[in-house]
């Protein structure tokens, strides 16, 4: 590191996230965060409905995913073809997506078409047709993607980890359903999933672009006309159940996928941000983390390795992933155990803390780089329970962390004795 130190000394950060958030409350009581940006004539709107696949029963696993995929397959008097053609005429970009914890709607529309696009979107959210022909077609696509997932080592590893971690809780099951449950879903199940997932009591709204607060407010009331007040109950917290050990799932291929981890930190834990900072040093999915340095840069054992705090609305874990040649799995697991023990015992260094504070505080403003990203950040901040001024104080909170703070967290978070591994592949030398 010849010149490194000198360059670090040159660094100073005038930057803050220059994001001017306007909270908007509509006449009917919907709240949204808006960032006005008038230079490009379009608006990005993001809706997050909490709940997602966790609201469905075991027998109907996959209902929310299938329902969400069907929202753009016809609504009101428009069948799937007519609905898509109308979206194209309006030159709007509408995407519906769903996952374990939420259903999301991302929309971009040209300013001059705002009302027409909102009417079109309302049709999808309030009057989806769920035509039998559409159900069968999309069911076929979901089943096909399940077949692909069943042959994908990464999916197999994630599923096995989730099952061991959360058992019978919805977090332990397959978000997309199984071939059996998806095959059994009928129109009534989809209507149920729709009623349960799309409701005012669980929506978080972000917007950015060429629109004034009062215009947004009126549009939101227009959009939510006919959307029910309450949805289906969301389950309780999931306990992390997986004990230490190693599961091997035989899979043919040159490499093994390794999933590893243990219990994590709740996202409303007062020290969550501290855990986030520690993980950024250890395994945050960039070059220069301890895991990347040890396994990739020094030894060439993998193309990439990352660890992440998987802190969902209902439960948490701390996990990592990598792919490596089958012959390397044994040494990789040994190295992971060593790195785990080292950070639990010694924590991170003052230099590592200094560097990560500089990086994280400098990188934060770069996230707010366009209407689409800003709208999505506005919705997800509310969903995750942050205050509006978090944007402005977040960097101060990171700068205020001391070495004692982060190393107390390292000792709390990392438990080498608790590590649970799932290996999908043909690892050499393990049993």
């Amino acid at each position, binding site marked *: 590191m010849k010149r490194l130190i000198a360059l670090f000394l040159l660094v100073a950060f005038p930057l803050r996230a220059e994001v001017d958030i306007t909270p908007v409350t509509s006449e009917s009581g919907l709240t949204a965060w808006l960032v006005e*940006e008038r230079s490009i004539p379009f608006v990005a709107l993001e809706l997050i409905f909490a709940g997602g696949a966790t609201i469905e029963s075991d027998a109907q696993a996959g209902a929310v995913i299938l329902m969400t995929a069907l929202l753009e397959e016809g609504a009101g008097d428009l069948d799937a073809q007519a609905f898509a053609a109308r979206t194209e005429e309006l030159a709007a970009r509408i995407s519906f997506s769903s996952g374990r914890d939420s259903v999301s709607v991302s929309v971009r529309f040209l300013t001059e078409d705002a009302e027409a696009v909102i009417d079109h979107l309302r049709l999808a959210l309030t009057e989806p047709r769920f035509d039998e022909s559409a159900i069968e077609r999309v069911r076929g696509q979901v089943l096909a993607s399940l077949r692909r997932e069943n042959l994908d080592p990464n999916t197999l590893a994630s599923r096995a980890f989730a099952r061991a971690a959360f058992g019978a809780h919805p977090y332990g099951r397959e978000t997309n359903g199984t071939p059996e449950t998806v095959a059994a879903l009928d129109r009534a199940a989809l209507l149920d999933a729709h009623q349960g997932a799309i409701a005012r009591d669980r929506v978080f709204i972000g917007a950015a672009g060429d629109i004034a607060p009062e215009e947004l407010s009126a549009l939101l009331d227009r959009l939510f006309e006919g959307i029910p007040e309450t949805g289906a109950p969301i389950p309780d917290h999931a306990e992390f159940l997986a004990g230490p050990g190693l599961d091997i799932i035989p899979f043919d291929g040159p490499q093994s996928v390794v999933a590893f981890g243990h219990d994590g930190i709740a996202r409303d834990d007062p020290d969550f941000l501290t855990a986030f900072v520690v993980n950024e040093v250890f395994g945050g999915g960039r070059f220069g983390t301890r895991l990347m340095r040890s396994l990739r840069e020094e030894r060439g054992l993998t193309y990439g390795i990352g660890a992440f705090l998987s802190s969902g609305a209902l439960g948490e874990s701390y996990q990592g992933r990598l792919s490596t*040649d089958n012959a390397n799995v044994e040494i990789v697991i040994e190295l992971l155990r060593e790195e785990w023990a080292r950070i639990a015992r010694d924590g991170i260094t003052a230099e590592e803390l200094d560097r990560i504070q500089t990086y994280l505080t400098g990188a934060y403003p770069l996230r707010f780089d366009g209407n689409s990203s800003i709208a999505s950040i506005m919705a997800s901040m509310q969903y995750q329970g942050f205050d509006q001024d978090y944007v402005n104080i977040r960097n101060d909170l990171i700068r205020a962390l001391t070495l004692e703070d982060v190393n107390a967290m390292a000792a709390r978070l990392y438990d080498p004795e608790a590590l649970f591994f799932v290996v999908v592949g043909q690892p050499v030398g393990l049993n």
Partner: protein
Amino acid sequence: MFARSLFVAALMVVSSFAAAKASPVTHATLDNGLEIVVIEDRRAPVVVHMVWYPVGAADEPPLQSGIAHFLEHLMFKGTDTQAPGEFSAVVEANGGRDNAFTSWDYTGYFQRVASDRLALMMEMEADRMQNLSFTDAEWLPERDVILEERGQVLESRVGAQFNEALLAALFKSHPYGVPIIGWRHEMETLTDEMAMDFYAAHYGPNNAILVIAGDVDTAEALALAETHYGPIPANPAITPVIRPSEPPHLAERRLVMEDARVGNPYVNRVYLVPPRRSGDQAQAAALQMLAALLGGSATTSVLERQLNFDEGIALSAWASYMGMMRDYGMFMMGITPVEGVSLDEAEAAMDRVFAEFLENGVDLEQFERVRRQIRASEIYALDDTQSRARQYGTGLSIGLSVEDVDGWIDALEAVTPEDVIAAGRDLLDRRASVTGHLTRPQTTEVN
């Protein structure tokens, strides 16, 4: 209130499209040959700094496939004055992100940082343009990394291996048939010396394009570029690389790949077609419109509507055009059938629908919708500065001019329905194509 009259709305369209085109892009060249593109977008205090070398995997010497990509990795391993990994560490210490990418035609390096860090990025990038230096302790493990990369992104994904096989069959002579990451048996023999030879032969200001996009003043950005890149002498070793070209294609190619990891069998066909050419993008624009009409929407495009919605024999069907290539473009068309429909039947249905499309002509309503979306995409694109920077970087790297890149939307708008049909008839020649069937082994029972 938000309601606007239709008349006002119509006026708005004109002004907004005009505004979209007014966004300033500047093109300049330094005395040492470095080309510069500056794109101003002052909305957020962020800048993207990119250096593109118009040299890539299609320029590799024999027996050294993968060397362009290996060099890309090694460019992070230090210079005469920078320690291994220092480049990324400094970017990170400044709150930025950096990465790099390699294609057949170009190799690019970029950083995304706060706009007041631009000079530092230039200083470091200019340094590694001329002073790359590393030891065995860096390059030996990095060769294992690229082998692991091949294992992860290619050999563990049957679809990627299938594409590799398709291109190897399509190109009889031109190096687009060799995978960018390289063939494993050749990658295993790559050395530091080969990488340094490739670097010495191709890297230098007279073979590079600098793209700066974001929160910068154009004049200041150009002055900074002159300060940091201006003093680098042109590299006299750089000479135009002559690539092999394709002989006439007289025989259609067909291949079958079987693998137990195939979830859903499918058919994919790749045609050799013209790429976007400087000063003459009309053919490419017609191919792009053809792809949009045949496969641009998962619902309303011709192949999806007919094969998935009306006949119910496809899970999905697609068409796409890759025109941002220096020597040859590619047009792809394919179908994943539903269970119970064989790949032969699926391919025949795809061919039938394509033939009917050529016979019956373009649906004018669909054509208008596609045009409307193209115009809107110009506005949406302004929201993503990094992607705009990539458009210019790619374009200039493959031999287009800034005017060609700027003129692409106009070229698309100039395409008529007749042009689309003519492109489908004249430019998609089965003799210059490969058709592949990816399927599970006949003997294995899955599900």
